[in-house]
């Protein structure tokens, strides 16, 4: 056997999972075959009186199914066989006449956790690398090996749903509290503790049964019919709210759990396998799995140059963005010198990091001490002098060219010659910022998205003079901040702003034509965006959007289209969006009215700026179509203009940077999937109705003529 090793000592068998060729242990068809064989042996070996399952890697248990395995499920039935096999193996494991102890160190994810769930007893290390999750939902799938059945039985329906429906990570201390594991132990004591436990359990089999009984009672209590119905109803409405029916997986997982509770474990497992099979071939899941696979590539530094070693960075400006950047940096162990106009502003910027780290403390991912240590790495200052000697500085000051230039000049005064100056801007060309720089080759763009703590993408902009080492270093830091990166060319708006702007522009046209603001946002949320374009404008700020529009207008003028001017009118009339409580939506505080995201009121005042105030009916379909088309068309322009190097960058960027629905893969995958012809036809149709802004990008024509797709 190549990946499994079975040793026996004192009647205790230890099964070690160790895939020699992999850094982590994943579930492969080979592993499954070998496991089958091992079970055969165990079922017939009467000398063995207990079994321990553990991971053989330095700090790895089993990290779930191999992603390539999932990509192999092409047609209905492929996944069914896999899931049934997995379920039957784990059922056999759980029915072994001897006690089975899982000894867990490192991540137990997906199938790895399901193996542990099928054991009688779980001991885990209290190490930070040890963590648990069932992340299938994030791939549009449900568990395939009993997770939806055994987890609720072990920790109760409510806790189980919170893991199953979000794929969230549970750290050791929480795992112990919820009963996901029975015991925690320090790393070096893991195997000894597992052996002691195995010996104890094999000498008194009753105890296991008792344990099982306890968790079952708990499970039933937490799931008494009335409470259960309430729980499920709430979960269902939450899912509906979050997915708008777009992602089938959460609902399917809920059904698996419900089915098991109603019809018993055996039926539950069978149902789970069928559900898994159905989900595996949905386009949503295909795109999510593919996207996941592709994103792994973006986890690597795209630049060939060798990055400089940086452990300490400077951040200029402690506003929303600066403090967010500080937070993600400090949380990843960077020392940060945070400079603002005055100390109180800088100190306030530190709060974002504290909030972020405190959340991690609450999730029991880190200790308070660790939080305080990371926080101590943030040095608040009001003086450029404190930047002296720093190898890397990120500027996050107000989005204005002259201001950014001044900050750059002042920084160059104190920074070492080889320091990188990264400018966080959503649209101002880096080469303009660097125009008067002493060392323009060390100036690079680093476009974070708001809120920086949450948004997973950073656009890295190579200015005309930026040298490769600066790009490599910037990518390296972004990756170490836990972000994904795409490197884009220095053209107005780069990639993300460039494709977002036409959406907002189209929304403005629609409002002018009489569309209701809420209908527009609803349409785009139905398409799968987390927020609609009008709401987004309020969030980003009407002032900022107006600014970006101005910067980017030439790009569109060159193509013979003009941008809608209403945003500028609003800006001039003092509308800035949420930040000054004057936007498309009503942000005035009202007593007794729930002004939640979902029930925001429209600021009726706004319609006066869009011609008449009477609204007319629009088909959601038309809105969705128009806004989507201008966006994907612009993405094609970006590829053609070499803003992005390849379609996959465009897809990943759109999904991670602007919330393009992941299950649709990204603009280019979407076009491929819809068919280039269909996209082209729809564009031409819209062009005839609404004008040149729908004129298909030449690249789309090319693909159409060549009969090719983007990928």
């Amino acid at each position, binding site marked *: 056997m190549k990946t499994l090793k079975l040793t026996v000592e004192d009647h205790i068998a230890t099964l070690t999972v160790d895939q020699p060729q992999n850094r982590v242990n994943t579930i492969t068809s080979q592993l499954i075959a070998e496991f089958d064989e091992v079970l055969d042996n165990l079922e017939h070996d009467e000398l063995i009186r207990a079994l321990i399952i553990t991971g053989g890697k330095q700090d790895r248990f089993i990290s779930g199914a191999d992603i390539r395995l999932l990509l192999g499920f092409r047609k209905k039935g492929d996944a069914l066989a896999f899931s049934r096999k997995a379920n039957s193996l784990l059922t056999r494991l759980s029915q072994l006449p001897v006690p089975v102890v899982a000894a867990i160190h490192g991540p137990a994810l997906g199938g790895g956790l399901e193996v542990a769930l099928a054991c009688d007893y779980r001991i885990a290390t209290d190490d930070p690398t040890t963590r648990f999750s069932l992340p299938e939902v994030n791939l549009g799938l449900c568990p395939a090996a009993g997770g939806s059945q055994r987890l609720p039985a072990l920790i109760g329906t409510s806790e189980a749903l919170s893991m199953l429906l979000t794929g969230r990570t549970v750290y050791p201390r929480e795992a112990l509290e919820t009963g996901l594991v029975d015991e925690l132990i320090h790393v070096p004591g893991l195997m000894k503790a597992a052996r002691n436990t195995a010996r104890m359990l094999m000498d008194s089999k009753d105890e296991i049964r008792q344990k099982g009984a306890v968790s079952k009672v708990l499970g039933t209590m937490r799931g008494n019919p009335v409470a259960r119905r309430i729980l499920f109803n709430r979960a269902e409405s939450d899912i509906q709210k979050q997915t708008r029916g777009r992602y089938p997986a959460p609902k399917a997982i809920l059904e698996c759990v419900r089915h098991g509770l109603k019809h018993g474990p055996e039926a539950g497992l069978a149902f789970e396998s069928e559900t898994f099979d159905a989900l595996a071939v949905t386009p949503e899941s295909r795109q999510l799995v593919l996207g996941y696979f592709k994103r792994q590539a973006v986890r690597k530094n795209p630049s060939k140059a060798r990055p400089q070693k940086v452990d300490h960075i400077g951040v200029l400006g402690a506003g929303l963005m600066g403090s967010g950047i500080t937070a993600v940096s400090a949380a990843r162990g960077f020392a940060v*010198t945070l400079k603002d106009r005055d100390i*109180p502003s800088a*100190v*306030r910027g530190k709060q974002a990091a504290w909030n972020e780290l*405190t959340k991690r403390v609450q999730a029991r991912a880190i200790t308070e001490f660790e939080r305080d240590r990371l926080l101590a790495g943030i040095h608040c200052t009001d003086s450029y002098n404190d930047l002296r000697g720093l190898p890397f500085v990120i500027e996050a000051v107000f989005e204005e060219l002259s201001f950014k230039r001044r900050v750059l000049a002042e920084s160059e005064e104190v920074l070492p010659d080889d320091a990188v100056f990264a400018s966080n801007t959503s649209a101002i060309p880096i080469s303009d910022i660097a125009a008067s720089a002493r060392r323009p080759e060390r100036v690079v763009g680093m476009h974070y998205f708001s809120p920086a703590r949450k948004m997973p993408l950073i656009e890295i902009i190579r200015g005309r003079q930026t040298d490769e080492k600066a790009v490599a270093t910037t990518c390296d830091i972004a990756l170490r901040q836990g972000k994904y990166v795409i490197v884009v060319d220095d053209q107005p708006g780069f990639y993300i702003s460039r494709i977002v702007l036409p959406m907002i522009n189209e929304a403005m046209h629609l409002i002018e034509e009489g569309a209701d603001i809420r209908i527009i946002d609803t349409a785009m949320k139905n398409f799968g965006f987390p927020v609609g374009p009008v709401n987004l404008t309020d969030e980003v700020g009407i002032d900022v959007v107006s600014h970006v529009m101005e910067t980017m207008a030439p790009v569109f003028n060159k193509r013979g289209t003009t941008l809608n001017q209403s945003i500028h009118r609003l800006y001039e009339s003092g509308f800035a969006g949420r930040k000054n409580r004057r936007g498309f939506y009503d942000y005035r505080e009202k007593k007794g009215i729930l002004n939640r995201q979902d029930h925001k009121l429209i600021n009726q005042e706004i319609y006066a700026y869009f011609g008449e105030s009477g609204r007319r009916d629009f088909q959601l379909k038309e809105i969705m179509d128009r806004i989507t088309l201008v966006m994907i068309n612009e993405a094609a322009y970006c590829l053609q203009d070499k803003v992005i190097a390849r379609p996959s960058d465009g897809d990943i960027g759109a999904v991670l940077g602007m919330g393009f629905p992941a299950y649709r893969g990204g603009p280019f995958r979407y076009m491929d999937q819809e068919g280039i012809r269909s996209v082209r036809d729809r564009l031409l149709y819209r062009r005839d109705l609404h004008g040149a802004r729908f004129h298909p990008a030449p690249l789309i024509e090319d693909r159409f003529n060549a009969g090719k797709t983007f990928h």
Partner: protein
Amino acid sequence: MSTSRKRSNIVLIDGCRTPFQIPGTGYRSFRSRDLARFAIRGLLNRTKIAGDQIGHVIMGTAFPDTETGNLAREAALGAGLPASVPAHTVSMSCLSSQQAIAGGIGQILSGGADVVIAGGADSFSSVRRPEELPLLREVSTGETMGKWADRLADRLGVSREEQDAYAVRSHQSAVKANESRLLDDELIPVASQPGFEAVTRDNGFRADFTPESLSILKPAFTKKHGTVTTGNAFFPADGASAVLIMTEEKAAELGLTPRVRIASRSWTAAHPADDMLTGAAHAIPKLIEQSGINPGDIDVFEVHEAFAVQIIALLKALASSPVPLPLRSLNPLGGSLSLGHPFGATGGRLLTTAANRLTRGNGRYAVVASPGGGGHGHAMLLEAMDAGSGNKSARGASSRKTTTQKAASRKSSSSKAAGTRTSASKAPSGKTEKTEGTQRSAGKASSGKAGESSSGKSQTKKTESQKSGPKQSGTPSSDNQNTAS
């Protein structure tokens, strides 16, 4: 002199402290280990020294936090120092951080570490049951510190008015120092948690204190007859301090510019029942004696203000000694009466403030002194790296003479680098010329004690007399912070 006993000079690279806060205010959510962490990290930020250059961390704390244990270790790790840097905590009431610094010097001189961070912290906000602290009552005497202060006042006949006047002076000094931002050099900002308000200033000094407003306060310790009140006594505060010390050679190797040499130190102890609060009055003369410098060369005094009466007693005691203490040189930026007294942090503050004053004012020597609970006293002699002349070797040579020569046989002396030593010994006359050119060469009279404290080895009263510069009488003090009346 004594190459065989050559000792490295210990220098202070930099020091800093958190602003001191009235308990229950800016630092109410912090324990002493948190404050110590801020101070250590602040020091690292300022000096930009790499953590792995630090050889040892020693922190003092007067009231060890039972929830912390080894405060220095927790603070050092929390500040991001490598786990490979040992750290320990010491305790000696008001002298805790002085003891930490002394321990650091000892570590360096004995070869235990090249570079040491020393300092201390105390937090009264995090004390659950303050009445259990030996804050004011000592076991050996059963008396409170305040009672001793009253007793001292009566023994020396110090009036209530004198005490209140000195207290007002302390507060006024702190107010002025804040207005002129002269404390900024030693302060590091702290972020309160979870509100993240910036704490950038001490918050205990009072611009509105006047002799009249203080006169209405009731005696705090000796009912009816006492003269010590909350207005003329120190107040407990939360805070931490940290200093970076190493040998002069190590500083050169690391490219760091030292502020001052720590030339000499003295410790004294007497029975608390006889000599409480007078420790500084014993420690200063002892220090001067053992270092052999001319007391007139001292431009800067920083003395811990436990009680106004204790300072007045010190002034009286020194007035009749060979070591004059001009009031204008004493605590012109405020003291423990006005800035507050976080017991374990005060020593680091005194050292840092004195070093900064010396540097700013181009002074030559500074004396840092403090009485401590238990009848202890401590004093430290600081020597400017370059007393304002452009001529290093000359100044170095003369200062070597003054401190080293007699102290050569003592451990705490500052011996010069070899080159300097040679030039000095070879060309004593040349030295004289050079010193004359310097701004602040000054010691006028030879102390006459030069040789006394030495073990009698090589001391010839050297060249004290040679140093008489033109300068001293004209400029009272170059420490322009001297605001005292």
